[in-house]
């Protein structure tokens, strides 16, 4: 009886402590974001934020950059990972090495490297669009690994040959035979990239572009309650992304054939 009680109590206690560790700061931030001086609590911090054009502009800029980063990185990486799976397995270690580089090289060094390396038209280098290059590199470890794991769980070669044999050319077999089986993987890669771009600060700050993360930092220096409200909003975006990954991961998990 005592052992059984311990078996339930110990994990429960640990779970409770962990929950407290994560929840207390969030609740405190939430409460603080509602504080309006003395003992007044209302939504004024949120109202002011939503009326600030800087908030809307920075949020829209970050969303646009995130969407473009997602689209371009998937366009680049899906065929690459597919090709590596199908014909270039010897190149996988090289690709894996490249994919971990953003973890190893500090963000500030990446910015410096990028600005020295990339020269080009004004619409790219002189605009926030330049950040897309950096964000694709930054999200590479997550995007690559998500796609690699997803494609490894399929018998890419057999499915591709089966589709080809039935008359599908390369674009058709990708669109009708391979990608529909990778929906969960693609959504996962998309949301991870989205969350990374929405929260990225160093690149945008150094390159002097006013993204959502830079705006949060600016507000943090000028208004404590609005900064708390923004932090919660930022958290919410990340949580929604994570929730999306979990849900699509469960719902669209490919179940391969095999004897029942």
């Amino acid at each position, binding site marked *: 009886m005592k052992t059984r009680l311990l078996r339930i109590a110990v994990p429960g206690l640990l779970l409770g402590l962990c929950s407290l560790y994560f929840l207390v700061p969030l609740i405190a931030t939430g409460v603080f974001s509602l504080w309006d001086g003395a003992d007044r609590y209302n939504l004024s911090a949120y109202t002011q934020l939503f009326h600030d054009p800087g908030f809307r502009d920075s949020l829209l800029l970050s969303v646009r950059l995130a969407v473009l980063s997602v689209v371009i990185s998937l366009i680049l990486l899906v065929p690459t990972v597919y090709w590596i799976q199908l014909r270039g397995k010897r190149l996988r270690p090289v690709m894996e090495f490249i994919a971990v580089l953003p973890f190893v090289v500090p963000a500030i060094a990446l910015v410096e490297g990028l600005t020295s390396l990339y020269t080009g038209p004004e619409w790219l280098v002189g605009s926030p669009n330049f950040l897309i290059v950096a964000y694709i590199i930054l999200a590479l470890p997550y995007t690559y690994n998500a796609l690699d794991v997803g494609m490894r769980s*399929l*018998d890419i070669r*057999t*499915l591709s*040959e*089966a*589709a*080809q*044999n*039935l*008359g*599908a*050319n390369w674009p*058709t077999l990708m669109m*009708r*035979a391979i990608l*529909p*089986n990778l929906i969960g993987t693609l959504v996962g890669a998309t949301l991870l990239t989205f969350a990374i771009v929405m929260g990225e600060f160093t690149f945008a700050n150094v390159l002097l572009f006013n993204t959502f993360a830079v705006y949060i930092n600016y507000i943090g220096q000028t208004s404590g309650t609005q900064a708390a409200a923004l932090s919660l909003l930022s958290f919410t975006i990340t949580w929604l992304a994570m929730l999306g990954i979990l849900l699509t991961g469960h719902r669209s998990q*490919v*179940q*391969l*054939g*095999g*004897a*029942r």
Partner: protein
Amino acid sequence: MKTSGLHIRGVNKSFADMEVLHSISLESKPGEFISLLGPSGCGKTTLLRIVAGFERPDSGSILIDDRDITLSPAEHRNMGMVFQAYSLFPHLTAAENIRFGLRLRRTPKSRQQSIVDDLLALAGLSAHRDRYPHQLSGGQQQRVALARALAIQPVLLLLDEPLSALDAKVRVQLREEIKRIQRETGITTLFVTHDQEEALSISDRVAVMHDGRLVQFDTPAKIYHRPTDSFVAGFIGTSTRLEGRVSDAHNGRVDILGISMPAAGVQGHSDRARVNVYVRPEAIELHRADTVAHGLEGRVLEHTFLGATTRVQVAVHDCVTLLADIQSATAHRFPVGSQVRAAWAPEAPRILTT
């Protein structure tokens, strides 16, 4: 269904420095069921993949009804293929898998529907049309794959060891279904297998491959009874190989371990020529040594009960082990350790030059 003839002409293929196919030539008649049979690594799957268009031959050509398709890509060849691995698209139901090729060909929807219905019925899977691959057994999945391959009305049906992942009972059932469907549709079929029983039981002709070479291409009966190559004689079925020397070619006699034995097949060989004599276990008759004076004398080493028959191992001169299948009811007459004589009819052994 339109039937087409396949003509493989002098195909060679190497991977890196390894030559996997040496000058393979093979011709099928329209509607014929041909098996490519051989041990692992003999090149049979590579040959099938070349026919399918997934590999290019280094030299040689592939013709369908005298039309050279060697350089045409796989998606333009209109061949149906069933793979060894489960190859159904996991996101599509059984019916949608079968419809896949028809949709690519923009077949009218009503026609698609009737083809899918017919093929599901042919494969005995009408009740499973809306099931996803993971809801089907291995055998059902391969039947859907077969139906999917047939849906496009291919010029050729290619089967790449489609039964190898299935358990023994399902394998036998499905191979009979494959043969029935092939007979009903009349489609020319190329079937790759390493299982000789499978190949011999369902094929019109069998192409036996060894080390990238086509060593014999003939009917199952001829492959079994009249192998023209020592590899085929050893690979197909069970037989005992005995070394001999032709003693009287005219009268069909061969000396084996100093004993003159009948062998009609030596006619045409020169006297004193060294030959290999292959004898099937079922062709050997055993007699107790004290009852007859002819035949190879030996000692019974072991009995293996096979049901109606018992396989007896006989050590001849303690240097060759002869296998003989006898009726189980008579096995008690030849106990382990007893002396026996083995004999056979003159036409039973297959003679091949060494």
